[in-house]
């Protein structure tokens, strides 16, 4: 017997602002510990928060991108709890009046459209980071303290780990597309907690849910949900459903299982109350309209346009639009004159391959150079194989591809006279192959072609070389 999973996600997203949410400190990742700090984000006595307007703008943008209602009057609240990484011992967040509510995200799971409701999006500050050393000392780095976040809370609309992943990928690309966040999970700028319960199919009830924390990558989200689904299913199956407690479980990625972190009994009472240091956030309709206008084309719209305008396959479109910077790169290559189909092929195969090797979110070759390279292949100036070599070389050498081709000696030999001479000399050097051909072994053409390519150091235009070779073979055929 199998059960239906009921899953809701809470996603913390670091907003792409230059300074923190309540002070002017920079948000750069990877700075030395406790250097991006000031009395305000250190929660020094007497300091006060002042809301960064950019945070509100980005939160509205996120709300608009995820089809939410924007609450024109919203407010901040204090969430009180003690932890060394929380310098004020309260986190400024939003409790009962979040900035965005009632949104939804549409996405595709194995060819079927799925919609997940978004309960709310609220703004809040990030705490610092605890570092536990091997010798039992705990250190705190407050660089992250006060970095602006939005928390996106979904309705319990997700029914499987697969759906959760597809949803997360969609949300990630929407946020990246809108310039709201870079969503780098490895840098902690996108974090996810999951709530899961199970029930019999066809039921409409919500059973006791378990919250899973410490999900550091999409892969781990998938694994943890599957594992927790299995754990709960097994308990149900053996009539031990009562053992599913409302609790928070920690995902142990190394051991591949969830472990009890805290139970309902020791759940925090956060003692929320309105933040007295900040006035309510009162928005103008114009601010929401501005967000709508500045919102770039989102993946959904792009998918349709790429299909229609470029006549690409669904598969190609999906790969191209998965990341905004890839889609943008592709379109730039096309703008520089490359045929869309060729451009797509190059970006998907060669571009993404390069991307893997450089580990950065930018294809390290100028789109104009790739467009030119594609043109040179079309013109038979360079062979496809050689062009791939040139493409890689362009990473280190930012020059006109044609110059690079010359320097690398990869210009394709397309002169019929010159190639003809080479073909002739190959034929006279390999009389046995010629005989073989005439004795009914056409595969010797391959061997001869190889010799031609070898003699030209790979620069022969293969189509032309083959034509010339077959022409010569036909001409010197023995009289029947």
């Amino acid at each position, binding site marked *: 017997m199998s059960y239906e999973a009921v899953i809701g996600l809470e996603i913390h997203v670091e907003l792409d602002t230059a300074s923190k949410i309540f002070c002017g400190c920079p948000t750069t990742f990877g700075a030395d510990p406790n250097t991006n700090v000031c009395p305000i984000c250190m929660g*020094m*006595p007497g300091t006060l*928060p002042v809301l960064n307007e950019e945070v509100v703008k980005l939160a509205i943008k996120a709300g608009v991108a995820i089809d939410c209602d924007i609450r024109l009057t919203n407010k901040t609240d204090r969430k009180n709890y003690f932890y060394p990484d929380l310098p004020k011992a309260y986190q400024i967040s939003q409790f009962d009046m979040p900035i965005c509510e009632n949104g939804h995200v549409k996405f595709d799971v194995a060819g079927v459209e799925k919609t997940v409701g978004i309960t709310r999006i609220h703004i809040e500050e990030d705490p610092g980071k605890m570092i536990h050393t091997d010798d039992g000392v705990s250190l705190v780095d407050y660089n992250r303290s006060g970095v602006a976040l939005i928390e996106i809370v979904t309705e319990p609309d997700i029914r499987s780990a697969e759906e959760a992943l597809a949803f997360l990928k969609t949300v990630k690309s929407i946020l990246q597309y809108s310039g709201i966040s870079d969503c780098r999970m490895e840098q902690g700028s996108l974090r996810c907690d999951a709530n899961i319960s199970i029930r019999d199919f066809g039921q409409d009830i919500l059973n006791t849910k378990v919250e899973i924390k410490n999900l550091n990558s999409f892969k781990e989200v998938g694994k943890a949900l599957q594992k927790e689904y299995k754990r709960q299913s097994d308990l149900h199956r053996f009539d031990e459903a009562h053992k599913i407690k409302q609790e928070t479980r920690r995902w142990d990625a190394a051991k591949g299982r969830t472990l009890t972190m805290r139970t309902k009994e020791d759940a925090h009472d956060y003692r929320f109350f309105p933040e007295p240091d900040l006035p309510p956030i009162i928005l103008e309709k114009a601010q929401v309209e501005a967000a709508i206008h500045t919102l770039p084309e989102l993946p959904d719209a792009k998918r349709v346009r790429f299909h229609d305008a470029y006549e690409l396959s669904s598969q190609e479109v999906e790969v191209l639009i998965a990341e905004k910077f890839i889609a943008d790169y592709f379109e730039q290559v096309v703008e520089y004159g490359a045929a869309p189909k060729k451009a797509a092929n190059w970006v998907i195969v060669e571009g993404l391959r390069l991307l893997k090797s450089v580990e950065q979110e930018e294809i390290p070759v100028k789109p104009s150079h790739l467009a030119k390279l594609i043109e040179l292949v079309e013109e038979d100036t360079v062979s496809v194989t050689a062009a791939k070599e040139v493409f890689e070389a362009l990473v280190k050498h930012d020059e006109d591809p044609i110059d690079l081709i010359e320097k690398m000696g990869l210009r394709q030999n397309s002169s019929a006279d010159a190639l003809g001479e080479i073909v002739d000399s190959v034929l006279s050097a390999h009389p046995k192959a010629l005989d073989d051909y005439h004795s009914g072994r056409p595969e010797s053409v391959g061997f001869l072609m190889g010799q031609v390519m070898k003699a030209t150091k790979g620069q022969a235009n293969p189509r032309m070389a083959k034509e010339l070779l077959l022409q010569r073979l036909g001409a010197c055929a023995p009289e029947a």
Partner: protein
Amino acid sequence: MDLKGLRIKDMQSGLAEGKFTSVELLEAVYKRIESADGEVGAFLSLAKESALESAKESDARRAKGESAGSLDGIPVAIKDNICMKGVTATCASKMLEDFYPPYDATVVKKLKKAGAVIVGKTNMDEFAMGSSTENSYYKKTKNPWDLSKVPGGSSGGAAASVAAGMVPISFGSDTGGSIRQPAAFCGAVGLKPTYGRVSRYGLIAFGSSLDQIGPIAPTVEEVALAFEVVTGMDRYDATSIHSSLQDDFMDFVKSGASGLRVAIPEEYLGAGLDEEIKESVLSTAETLKKLGATVEYVSLPLEDAALSAYYVVASAEASSNLARFDGVRYGYRTEEFDTTDELMIKSRSEGFGEEVKRRIMIGTYALSSGYYDAYYKKAMQYRKSMEAAFDKIFESYDLVLSPASPVLPFGIGEKTDDPLAMYLADVYTVNINMAGLPALAMPCGISKAGLPIGLQFIGRKLEEATILKAAYGLEQALELPKTALEKEGA
């Protein structure tokens, strides 16, 4: 040089005419503190080095014919919950014994910019929680009018420093009466500005939605001068109000009480009010009439709920504001601990005093899940109705007049065992913070026992000038001693 009877304008002219220098004035202040503070206990720390530096700079400016502003070279004191770089800000708590703030409060910046010489930091009830300054971890401050009496609180050190003739201006903070009640107890003038009129940046928070910094001084004019320097919008305080004072502010303040419409809430003269205070307030009303003001009695119910609502809001906010004192980053840290929880629990248990712990407990309870609606939410609703009640009165009147405290300065140790009796001392002042209004306390008489009696003027939001105008007119008419040094037989 003798500081007795020396007003700021005398100091200004003395400095301008070269009768004395800022450095000499500062030396006189420290001499006075040295001779009197052993008994009074107004100061927790002195900032001698930086003060001398400021005084020298002031003299240098004056020598060049320059001036930094209206307080150039004038010695002032600040309460020990206001942050100043390089000087401890203890909040009179063991918790912050060694805490040196890494920055200046906006008020401190403004004072420095105006040329003021900050001489030191005054005693208070721990974290501003109390009405007698007996909750200080370090020492008890005594009332300069009668050393067996409390100076009031929580800005007791500030009021005593003024009443003892040590400094002409002392800045305090007022969350539920902490400027006005000690000013009244010490026969001084104390102003709690409109919420948002003076930046709270750098004031170690007690009740964030109630706290305001304000001046205490011997006279209304000096209070007005000090207020003028520290008021103004501050981009570091999101609750500060964008509004400047009128250009003829000081002239307006001195233009007399004639024509002002004053309301006295009958309920504020009811049960629990000391007879001598009542008589004094009523006779002051007659004086106001003689000055050309109209005085009428109105009804403004003083519900029992007022005090409860205040203590819920103030304690709730305090429970959150004081949570950061956990022994992790600064302040008191317990000697021995095994876990982070133990570090925090022990540091807080050992670092905070009884009254602070009581308020943290009250506040934590009031915000707890399941109790929020019954306490905090209800208190906030009451707050709105309080504001509306005052608004209604201000439709017909310019000012509300009431006693500042229901009782005269009481004996040291007299109420320390009865927190509720202590809380009742705030009955006339807490509503004003709840409504965010400006109010001023000033002396209106001397009791038979020779203790100051104080009254309170309450005004419309942002109308400090009107309050000061009435107070100035009244002060001129009453001719009471300005400090304990000037009292009869002193």
